[in-house]
């Protein structure tokens, strides 16, 4: 690999989805083959590039790309271990979701627009992951909002428009708060690159109020996307979007962007020391704990499958925030690994929900009775995903919960474990009845609108294959957690290499 090419690698990774996306916009509706080719080309390219970068970062190389942007705050794309975690997650899940979306949207109108924005959305996510300073992060954070909005309203029904309005109201306000916070920090400390251990420590002496304000603004801005308690209102409504979109929104793109931002802010902007010194973690901790329970509690009452999954997301994403707010190395590992695990599990669940909806027209939970016999593979994937959400091994969710629990015990906050237990209980309360219906329920009426999508499989292979793929990932990540390839090992590497814990 040429040296000059290496410098451009971060940019190329962003462009590998951006350019196909822009090209797709210009395509006509009927150019299915070309569009699919472009999509897959982008995915493959991105995966190859990400693989190269992964190799490099593992060896300790650094990638750094800089364009002039604001005075004192360049646009920086760089790759450290943390950003790579998110990049890998989003590119791999993009692959699954793209295939899924191609199958899901077969014969539906406006596909060029859909796939165009879809690629933009991934580009923004990857850019956000690779962002090297707060200003760059802010830029991609806003772009993400813009790229996902058309996906949320893609159906164009009154409900989806209402959801879109709400989504915008929340996310744009969040972006605004973030912008206020970023500008305040820029004034106080400039916008240097993300630094392990943060770069605000020298400012501690000169007064803490403004730092606290900045932290509050940043977290509130990020909390909107991460669906922290009072800011979560957009998420359950946004599930009216088509299944691949919900899958991507809930698993990778939007909610994770918020959570990832919180990780960045706490570890690479403020740093553990400053957060401790300013007593900033406590409110975040309580908020996250409350959100975990609140989301689960609300999920119980939902009768719509996707809505239940949406509330579950609110709860699950806050695990990440909680792990970050605990400010311990093990909790950080738990938070990071949950970022990946939750993504894969939730995307599986949404794929399955989409499969049920597309194949049999099932949207409500009570219609799921006995669907396990009709669609065993999908149901298996759903079951494993649900068990993972509860935190039952060997699904991946267990590993992350375990590390979060260890982290809580490590910093002597055993009450947090109680939160996990209660949340696990609530998770079981809203997932296991669904699983029960799937496998043991007796079908009492005909399927709402069955479609024969495949002659060989239970549903279209493009719908089935991604869910099987992510199902495999869940089990592999849960079982082979200690291997070098696993998110767990990578998270440990991140914490070891980049997070500054004294001990």
């Amino acid at each position: 690999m040429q040296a000059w090419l290496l410098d451009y690698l971060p940019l190329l990774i962003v462009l590998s989805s951006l350019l196909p996306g822009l090209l797709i916009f210009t395509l006509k509706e009927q150019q299915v083959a070309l569009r699919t080719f472009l999509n897959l080309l982008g995915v493959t390219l991105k995966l190859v590039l990400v693989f190269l970068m992964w190799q490099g970062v593992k060896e300790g190389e650094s990638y750094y790309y800089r364009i002039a942007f604001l005075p004192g705050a360049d646009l920086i794309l760089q790759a450290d271990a943390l950003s790579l975690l998110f990049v890998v997650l989003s590119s791999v899940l993009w692959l699954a979701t793209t295939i899924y979306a191609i199958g899901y949207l077969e014969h539906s109108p406006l596909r060029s627009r859909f796939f165009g924005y879809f690629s933009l959305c991934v580009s923004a996510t990857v850019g956000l992951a690779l962002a090297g300073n707060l200003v760059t992060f802010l830029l991609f954070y806003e772009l993400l909002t813009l790229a996902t909005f058309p996906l949320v309203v893609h159906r164009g029904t009154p409900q989806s428009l209402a959801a879109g309005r709400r989504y915008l109201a929340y996310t744009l306000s969040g972006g605004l708060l973030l912008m206020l916070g970023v500008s305040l920090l820029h004034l106080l400390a400039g916008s240097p690159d993300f630094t392990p251990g943060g770069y605000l420590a020298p400012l501690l002496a000169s007064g803490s109020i403004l730092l606290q304000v900045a932290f509050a603004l940043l977290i509130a801005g990020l909390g909107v996307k991460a669906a922290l308690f009072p800011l979560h209102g957009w998420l359950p409504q946004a599930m009216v979007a088509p299944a691949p979109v919900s899958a991507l929104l809930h698993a990778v793109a939007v909610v994770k962007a918020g959570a990832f931002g919180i990780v960045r802010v706490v570890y690479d902007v403020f740093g553990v020391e400053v957060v401790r010194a300013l007593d900033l973690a406590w409110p975040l901790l309580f908020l996250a704990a409350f959100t975990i329970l609140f989301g689960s509690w609300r999920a119980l009452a939902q009768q719509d499958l996707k809505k239940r999954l949406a509330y579950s997301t609110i709860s699950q994403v806050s695990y990440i925030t909680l792990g970050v707010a605990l400010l311990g190395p093990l909790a950080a590992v738990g938070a990071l690994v949950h970022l990946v695990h939750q993504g894969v599990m939730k995307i599986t669940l949404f794929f399955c929900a989409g499969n049920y909806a597309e194949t049999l027209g099932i949207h409500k939970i009570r219609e799921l009775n006995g669907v396990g016999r009709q669609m065993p593979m999908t149901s298996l994937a759903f079951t494993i995903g649900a068990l993972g959400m509860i935190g039952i091994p060997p699904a991946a969710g267990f590993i992350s919960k375990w590390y979060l629990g260890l982290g809580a015990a490590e910093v002597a906050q055993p009450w947090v474990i109680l939160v996990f237990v209660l949340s696990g209980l609530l998770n079981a309360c809203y997932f296991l009845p669904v699983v029960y219906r799937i496998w043991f329920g007796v079908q009492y009426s005909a399927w709402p609108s069955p479609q024969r999508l495949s002659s060989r499989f239970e549903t279209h292979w493009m719908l089935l294959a991604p869910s099987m793929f992510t199902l495999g990932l869940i089990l592999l990540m849960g079982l082979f957690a200690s291997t070098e390839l696993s998110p767990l090992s990578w998270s440990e590497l991140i914490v070891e290499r980049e997070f500054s814990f004294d001990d």
Partner: protein
Amino acid sequence: MIDLSHLLWPGAGLGFTSAVSQGWLLFTLLLWLLALLYSLSSQQQDPRAGRYWLFMLLCFAGNVLLIAAQDALSFYLGFSMMSLAGTGLVLHSGTKQARRAGRLYLQLAVIGELLLFSALVLRASAAGGLYDWQSWQNVPLDHLTISLFVLGLGLKAGFFPLHLWLPQAHPVAPAAASAVLSGAMIKAGIFGMWLFLPATDPLLQQWGQGVLWLGFVSAIFGALAALCQQKSKQILAYSSVSQMGYLLMLLSLSWLLPPAQQSLALIALVGYAAHHAFAKGALFLLAGSASRYRFGTGDQLLLGFFIVSLAALPFTSGAMAKTALKQATAAFALPAANLLYLGALCTALALCHLLMRLKAEQLALLSQTSASNMPWLQRGPVLLLAVAAVLLSWSGVMPASASVWLPLGITSYTSLSLQALTAAAIWAAIWPLLMALPTYYLLQRFAGSWLLQLGRRQRWVFFTSLKLKRLYQPL
């Protein structure tokens, strides 16, 4: 031992390194294989046999895994796999009873899992992020962790106040499933407690006394509650509650005894567990067959053998187990060691009741249809279980050269069976039985309907479970 730590998670490993786990594995494996063999016949006409086998095999794998585990996470993996797949077995028949029992089972199993999870987390954290047993042995426990372990694992083991699900869930499952549920799976709770609560820990001395009494109460309660039941499988299930009480007593004795004698209690624990696994497993299998097939004389003899064995009549594995229990109790110099006789009496009463009910059920079956004979595929496993039980109780009599083939450290248990052959032990085993017969007659005569009514007093459990369900699943 297989080291998997570079593959799965730090400290992951599988192996059977201690005598207890070797013995435990042996009887568990045996019971499982025979139960699976039995299922070949019993599930022949099952339209949903695929589902049955799936859950059976999952439970099997989980059960073996948790015994083989060398670290907390592998144990937890096996434990939860077994627990959750067990739901499938309880729910299998799909009847109303099965559904509500399944719900109750699942609710409590999940709670148990989560309690165990938090206990493991606390423990792993105390051990500095290491998960393997070796590192955990010397890390001091604290009260919170112990109570979490006792509750979490106790919910699986099903001893007295945590037994609620057991008498409901075991009877509704298919016979072979009930056999492994009662014979092997609930023992995982006790096994886990042995694993996670190392006897060397000083804090357990404080807990031992209480747990001992808890075990005793459970033993008496289970037996008495069994008397109030009408269905043979439910009687067997309550009997399991009672037997788990004995196992719990043995476990707590292992904590209380001085280190030199701890191995005695542990040997007794494994022996008792094996005995119970064989006897209870066989009885469940027989009870399953009894509801569908005509019993020949041989079958009735087999039934009698296991009942007698469970009642700890001399020369049975039960006698061996009970003797071991008594020895351990005596070693601790428990003032109320004589209370054990009360336990034995109650057990005997329950078994009388079981015999009567089985007989009644068989008669009812025969009066309705012309049932065929029990197929050999079902009889065979039961017979093999009987052989295993006999081997268990008599292996000590065999010459040392003959017992060498016994795998691993099993030989250490064989000495127990010899001690059961002393005259004092024989007498001690027989007299409660002799007393039980007239007592049972009198009880049935004068308090039969009262007992029946008492037996119906378990609806509150379902009611609460349903309430709970309504809470998290509003209509």
